[in-house]
């Protein structure tokens, strides 16, 4: 068994006393042998999906060990080539069960020029098992493409989720990413977007919801190089019990990205007095003619609003669920698949029971 150490380093370090530069996972038992994973369900146009993925070259990633595991031992490889000129939805579901406990997936999405698509990738534990997921998703959004990716983590709290994402967004391309991050004792995500092209546009919306001793470590990095490129990061979360979250968001205006814009908003609802939220919203700027903003907030749920809802006859828990869902609603609106949205809303109810 491999013992994991340091993961998810920030692109720029700050004082180590702040405990945010990386996440240290001690005594974590990493599976040595990766068995077959076959419980996968793909709904959509199968003709555009092959197993012919290209070589992985990540600038960041979670750490060398995890990246190498996907490079050399992936038990699922999927390449999705998008050529459609009209938006079509493809749904890829990975279902963990007693026969399929370990998933190491390598997903590559190539959106050709002027193409449109919505791709949903869902990770779900179907039974009371301890599952392991380590994956890399790469998206290449070529000129004038318009791509929507929705990643949904509905694993249970015994399992562990490690995910590295890397995007390249070219001229006039739009990449709209939504991440629903609910499951995992540890759920650790590295997201890196390269906005290379002029007018490249990337929106990243994330919801996380933690309970018990769950630990989320989100390391989002956007590098803006193209003129008038735009990144918008919106992160909404809630933490109950002893759950913990580290949010590290970096908007990096590189030289030459004139008139680029970057916005980052992170908000955490603390539902218990033992939940912990650490955030590091960074703005790095080597270009004069840009606009960068970030905001970060944390606090408990508004008591007056809660009282108002309860005065209308709702029990405390029901009122709480309503308020959390209301807070998440803006991001959930990005999901047009009603079945998936219902599933997510049900999971919120379950987690807040």
């Amino acid at each position: 068994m491999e013992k994991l150490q340091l993961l998810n380093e920030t692109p720029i370090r700050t004082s180590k006393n702040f405990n945010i530069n990386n996440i240290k996972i001690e005594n974590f038992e990493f599976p040595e042998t990766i068995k077959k994973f076959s419980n996968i369900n793909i709904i959509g146009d199968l003709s555009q999906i092959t197993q012919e993925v290209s070589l992985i070259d990540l600038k960041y990633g979670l750490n060398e060990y995890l990246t190498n595991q996907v490079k050399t031992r992936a038990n699922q490889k999927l390449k999705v080539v998008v050529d459609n000129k009209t938006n079509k939805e493809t749904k890829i579901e990975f279902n963990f069960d007693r026969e399929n406990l370990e998933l190491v997936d390598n997903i590559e999405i190539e959106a050709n020029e002027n193409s449109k698509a919505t791709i949903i990738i869902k990770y779900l534990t179907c039974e009371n098992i301890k599952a392991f997921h380590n994956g890399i998703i790469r998206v290449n959004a070529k000129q004038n493409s318009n791509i929507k990716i929705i990643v949904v983590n509905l694993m249970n709290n015994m399992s562990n989720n490690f995910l590295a994402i890397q995007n390249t967004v070219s001229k006039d391309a739009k990449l709209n990413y939504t991440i629903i991050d609910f499951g995992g004792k540890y759920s650790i995500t590295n997201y890196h977007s390269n906005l290379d092209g002029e007018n490249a546009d990337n929106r990243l919306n994330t919801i996380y919801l933690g309970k018990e001793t769950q630990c989320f470590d989100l390391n989002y990095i956007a590098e803006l190089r193209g003129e008038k490129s735009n990144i918008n990061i919106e992160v909404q979360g809630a933490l109950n019990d002893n759950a913990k979250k580290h949010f590290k968001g970096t908007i990096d205006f590189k030289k030459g990205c004139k008139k680029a814009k970057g916005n980052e908003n992170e908000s955490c609802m603390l539902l218990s007095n033992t939940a912990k939220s650490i955030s590091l919203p960074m703005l790095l700027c080597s270009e004069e003619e840009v606009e960068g903003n970030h905001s970060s907030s944390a606090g408990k749920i508004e008591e007056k609003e809660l009282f108002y809802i309860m005065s209308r006859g709702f029990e405390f828990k029901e009122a709480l669920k309503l308020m959390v869902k209301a807070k998440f609603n803006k991001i959930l609106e990005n999901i047009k698949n009603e079945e998936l949205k219902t599933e997510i809303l049900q999971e919120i109810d379950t987690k807040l029971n």
Partner: protein
Amino acid sequence: MKTKLEEINRNIYDIKNKDEYEFKIKKGLTAEIIEEISKQKNDPDWMRDFRLKALEVYNKLELPTWGPDLSELNMEEIATYVKPKSKLNSSWDDVPEDIKNTFDKLGIPEAEKTSLAGVGAQYDSEVVYHSMREDLIKQGVIYTDMETAVREYPELVKTHFMKCVPVSDHKFVALHGAVWSGGSFVYVPKGVKVDIPLQSYFRLNSPESGQFEHTLIIVDEGASLHFIEGCSAPKYNKVNLHAGCVELYVKDGAYLRYSTIENWSKNMLNLNTKKAIVGKNAKMDWVSGSFGSKISMLYPMSILNGENAKTEFTGISFAGKGQNLDNGFKVVHNAQNTSSVVNAKSISKNGGKCTYRSLVRINENAKNSKSSVSCESLMLDDISISDTIPTNDIRTDDVEFSHEAKIGKISDKTIFYLMSRGLSEEDAKAMIVRGFAHPIAKELPVEYAVEMNNLINLELEGAIG
């Protein structure tokens, strides 16, 4: 069309006196050197032992693995103690002519006459002048140099010296503990309100040397004080080091405002440490202007230990060519109903780099606490760098925490608006930059605000297009 800011006029600050001294310790850092400093300073035994222990800690600690590159700092090339050719004086007339001239040109004696309740002036490693108004002495206020305090108020010093900032905090604090010299000691007794400010001015003249002054201020229950600290040095080709330490104790119900105008020369590594412990119903305000230094790593810190304790930080950094100013603020909320407000600004130009680095930590026991942080960065050209690296660590639910930051250049729309009101483009830009710095300038005493506005002197050139 580019906005061009003049480099700060350093003529006054760059006056070099001959490197004359009574004693200059040999370069480097060994137990023998520490023993020699201790002997020169006539330390009591406990202080000598303290210095030697701090040296041991220094040798064990690593350089920071983050922030600006400090590789050009070579302690083997730095003389940590330079005793000027002057004893401590209480009259400016007794200060040697060349040293007095320097402080005259910096305006210190004049300021003392017009707007200060007391003045301390340090030249290289020792304080050469100290005085305070008679009425404050009668009220029991103590304002003296640290060496005198160690001798005359041993109990007060022993119970507070490097307890707020322990030597284990980081490598340069340990270095400070080993070689500290000079600095100020202030004690304001219970209930005494010092209505006009006290000021200490630190001047480092000697090349390839370091200044390690220690400032210890105790504002007792219900008392209040405004303390101003200024610092400068002429420019030499090799690096100088400033690793001072400021420890502030703001007891229950007390108020302390600590203002700093830092204008070290561009060969200075400013690795200073400042920390305040704030008691129940007490308030600690920091006002900070950071203009000089080649590299600065400066993060004043408030620890809000008492219920209802409050702190505010208002700061501006201005980085020009060759400067890397890594500044910020740290606050730890350690009791109920505490609050903190941070307003930080930075301007970078001509290839300078400004970084705002901070920590807000709200601990489990800090119920009903509030923290609001705002930072703004202005880039004046496309060869400069501006980074914002704030850490927010929230460990309880009953809090109101918000942080916002923005980064950008002078808005074309705003310039256009002002021009439509009849201003020239140059005046419009000058007004915007002064307006940007105004929230900080208005917190400074008038003469410092004027100095700051002079430092931010706009010159515009080129044509619209």
